[in-house]
């Protein structure tokens, strides 16, 4: 297992934890440093503020899934002591072979027992507590009724009569949806209400109000579809408690179902030995969900399928939840779980190894790029017409050239089919179009662009936002 600085930075929950951990190593706070004779676990005693030193460890029994443990009371995970231990290793501090302390070996044993138990349980058919499930579904159906009432009230009121105060009142009522096990529906309603106030809660200006009418109208349609499809789905599950969550569509996620890896595995949504390359990354504040969301856009090097990772960090526990970061290597994943969805499904994994990106990886990504804009556009339109679809799908496109037409940026394929590049309506990611004129000329012809499609409701135009250029020798990121 090679541990370098990049590995430690990726393991650290944030930059402060990495810095503090490194300081511990430099200050020689580790009174003892050891490793097991099979080198599967590295551990040490770190002098903290208490009387007794903390026992921290990095367990590489499963190399792609290291486990960090520490006896300190920190809620950060891994804590600075475990990070410091890794830095001590990088900086060449002397580690000696030693028997694993009982407290660690017992935890290790427990974890192994739990993993075995999990494995056994995974093979057993899942027991469903039918009465509890029925009770939950009934509560959800009541929640759907509430959502319908609220939506109808909003339609009766009219988009033009909404304001920040009313939006906040609706959001207060929508909290009941969370109580009714429908956090997804609650977020969908918030996606409508949040349109009516600024980030700091202020009322929108008149110009600002007019600019959101089309989007608000579309959001109402989504709520209507969610009510219809959600009710039908929940009723079908109430009628058949054995029925597994829907995997053909994303309706379960829309209602707020938190998928367990086991459920995904049971549904066959798992791939083995996959290599992924991150094409773009972003962190945005999702006011509707009250969370910071780290989004990674990845391509499966072998199949070319684009998936997204999402790390949700609730406002309330920002300090304790590890943030994701941009990743510049190839992720080697033993088991890749894919969430229900069509074009760019959410993906997740439990552990990974990494290796540097090579020219062949970039060549593979470039090979997967769509060469025919017309075909891709058709596919996109067919996808986004569904009210509950992801309205901003991602594709990797090969373009013949990017240039200007009457002041607009335009990408053209080999058949001279064109797509307009624009940032409008995609505020979650930093603006990127203006960067095109700052790129070397060679990156504007016969290259590959990672693009997010978006239909501009007011302009009635399907446009793309460039997120990265995949050249033969590098990926030039245009967002984060």
């Amino acid at each position: 297992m090679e541990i370098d600085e990049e590995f430690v930075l990726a393991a650290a929950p944030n930059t402060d934890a990495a810095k503090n951990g490194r300081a511990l190593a430099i200050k020689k706070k580790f009174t003892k440093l050891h490793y097991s004779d099979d080198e599967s676990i590295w551990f040490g005693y770190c002098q903290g503020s208490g009387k007794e030193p903390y026992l921290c460890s990095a367990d590489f029994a499963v190399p792609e899934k290291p486990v960090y443990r520490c006896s300190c009371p920190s809620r950060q995970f891994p804590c600075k002591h475990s990070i410091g231990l890794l830095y001590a290793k990088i900086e060449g501090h002397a580690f000696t072979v030693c028997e694993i302390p009982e407290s660690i070996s017992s935890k290790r044993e427990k974890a192994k027992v739990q993993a075995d138990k999990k494995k056994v349980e995974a093979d057993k058919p899942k027991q469903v507590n039918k009465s509890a499930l029925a009770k939950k579904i009934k509560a959800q159906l009541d929640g759907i009724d509430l959502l319908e009432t609220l939506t109808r009230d909003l339609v009766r009121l009219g988009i033009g009569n909404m304001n920040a105060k009313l939006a906040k009142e609706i959001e207060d009522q929508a909290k009941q949806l969370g109580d009714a096990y429908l956090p997804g529906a609650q977020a969908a309603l918030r996606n409508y209400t949040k349109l009516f106030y600024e980030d700091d809660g202020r009322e929108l200006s008149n110009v600002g109000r007019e600019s959101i009418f089309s989007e608000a109208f579309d959001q109402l349609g989504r709520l209507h579809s969610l009510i219809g499809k959600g009710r039908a789905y929940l009723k079908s599950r109430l009628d058949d408690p054995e029925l597994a969550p829907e995997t053909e569509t994303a309706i379960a996620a829309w209602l707020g179902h938190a998928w367990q890896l086991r459920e995904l595995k049971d549904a066959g949504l798992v791939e083995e030995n996959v290599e992924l390359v991150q094409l773009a990354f972003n962190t945005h504040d999702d006011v509707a969900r009250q969370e910071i969301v780290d989004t990674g856009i990845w391509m499966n090097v072998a199949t070319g399928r684009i998936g997204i990772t999402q790390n949700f960090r609730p406002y309330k526990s920002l300090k304790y939840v590890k943030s994701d970061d941009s990743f510049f290597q190839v992720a080697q994943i033993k088991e890749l779980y894919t969430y229900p969805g069509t074009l760019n499904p959410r993906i997740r994994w439990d552990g990974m190894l990494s290796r540097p990106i090579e020219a062949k990886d970039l060549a593979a990504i470039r090979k997967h790029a769509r060469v025919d804009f017309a075909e891709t556009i058709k596919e996109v339109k067919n996808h986004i017409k569904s009210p509950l679809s992801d309205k901003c799908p991602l594709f990797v496109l090969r373009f013949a050239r990017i240039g200007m037409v009457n002041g607009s940026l335009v990408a053209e394929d080999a058949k001279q089919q064109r797509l307009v590049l624009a940032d409008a309506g995609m505020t979650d990611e930093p603006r990127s179009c203006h960067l095109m004129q700052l790129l070397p000329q060679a990156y504007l012809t016969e290259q590959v662009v990672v693009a997010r499609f978006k239909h501009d409701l007011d302009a009635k135009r399907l446009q793309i936002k460039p997120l990265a250029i995949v050249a033969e020798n590098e990926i030039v990121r245009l967002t984060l």
Partner: protein
Amino acid sequence: MSIAVLNQVYDEVRRIAIAGSAVAPGDFRLKKLIPLLEQAGKKSPVFAKVADSATSLVDSSEKTASTALLEMGTLINSILYTQGETGLEGKLEPIVSKDFGVSRTQTSARLIKPLIEALTTTGSGRLEVVKDSHARGLFKDLRLIRPAILALDDVYSEIADFIAAEVLPIYGNAIYPELESQFDLKGKSGQPRRLELMHRLDPVKARPWVQLALDEGSKEIRVAAIRCLGTSAEDLTFLLEQSKAKAKDVRAAALEGLSRLDAKDASNALIAVIHHSDLELALRPLHNTESPDVIAAVHSAIDEQAKKILSSKEKDKSKLGKEVSRLLSLLQCVTDRKDTGTEETLYALLEDRRKWEGLKADPGGLDVLEAVSTALCVGSTAMQRKLVSLHPELPIECFWNAFESACAALKPDDVFATFGAYLKSYTGPSKKGATKKSKDINHARAETLVEAIGDGYRWTRSRYSRLAYHAHAEPKTISSTLSPKWLDLAIEMDVRPLILQLAVSGNKKSNDALAKMYKELADGKSKDFYQISELIEVLIRLQHPDATDAMVQAIEGLSKSTASYGLYWLLRLIKNLPKDEAIPKLETLITRLPEKIAEQVVDHLIELKQQ
């Protein structure tokens, strides 16, 4: 498919959604479109579906209208999602790529995101993030160009000024279009910065904006625009008008513009201001002007003012001081000039040196002589030689200028021959509170030499910063121009500030002297952290073998003293230590240090490791 009809239907349904579903029943505008839809529905079933949905909506009651409107909206939106336009007609022109060598985008989100936030949000601690990122070269990432430009409007003006002065020039005039697209004639704060930056990057392209800003801009923009004028003869009339404006900042900016113009009227305006209360506003323009008429007028004004002061019978020191202040201001205008007129004017002032020495006021005659010596010092070689030749007759306030003039105009050995003898009078620093007057003049001269050469760069810099509008941004260290004889004499007399400043690598005598100082540090005899820092700085500069050990000793020593605040300066030197030797030694040291000091050392140690 007849998209036009669908778009019409969409517009009507959207209108109803904005107004509220209560207006939907019987809506005649939507109703009018139904026959068109039904007709199109004969050919395409989707139109028939839309027609049915529209009929349901129009026929709905107040109770059912909301559901009907939602149905209709969902349907029409779904259809229009499939009808979005994609291409764009017209000739595809190549992008004029502005490749200015900033194409790196491999900085991780964890580093770049806080920087973007520092540039685009408000709150404390952002300037440090921006400065630190600038020092680490993070701005050489094309994704930061736009946030950096937007930071010109930062509410915290220090950030905006730093960005304008230090960061944005990195990108060159490739950012001009972006600046231009954001420029607002009526704006405040960031907009004047934007205009001046546009003018700095591309004066020709910015010219129309400058002219427009003069006519239509906000007050702040107009002042910025005036500051950009003076590059074209057509600015003259406007600048002349503005030089009489009510607002002081407008007058100052206009005078500056006039100083850049080669025109009789511009010169006359500047000459007029010499005798006006606006003189203080015009110091920079009068200093920068190349007009012989204006320069001659300044010379005359200096002569007149000097005569007025010296012939004055005024006893009130404050009133006399005001007259002297005016003379000092005029002397600032000729500082850095090398012409014969200036030469004659300054020499004439020196003729009356005895009178000036005796003039008591605040400021007084000694300040005048110092200002004259400063002007001679940065003047022509002849002026510098003149000052050197006169220095024995001038007060101590002029001594350093004379020495610096000698360094500039004479050969190093001749400088030593003229000034070396003064050093022999040195008997150590004077006690606190002792004035130069109370001391022996030769000792005072020796002390000036020790202070000046010994403090080398810092002293020179602070001195240069006192010279208003001095053209030399980065003065040379005086010690680099001195004869080695100075070092020999300093070692012989054990004048430590000079040894530290003049020591050279490989010189046995200076190495021995430094070793002696280091020994005293090791023995704990030395407590002055400025001296300690200076010694270590020199040891590092000379790659002395004791540099790392001296640093370790010094940190340990200072960590035990109450003066540990001096560590700030000392620790900044860690990054210059020899890496291989320093890292293990400092790591061992850290374990012995108090927690707070160890934290400080760690930060610098990480910096050394990352080099």
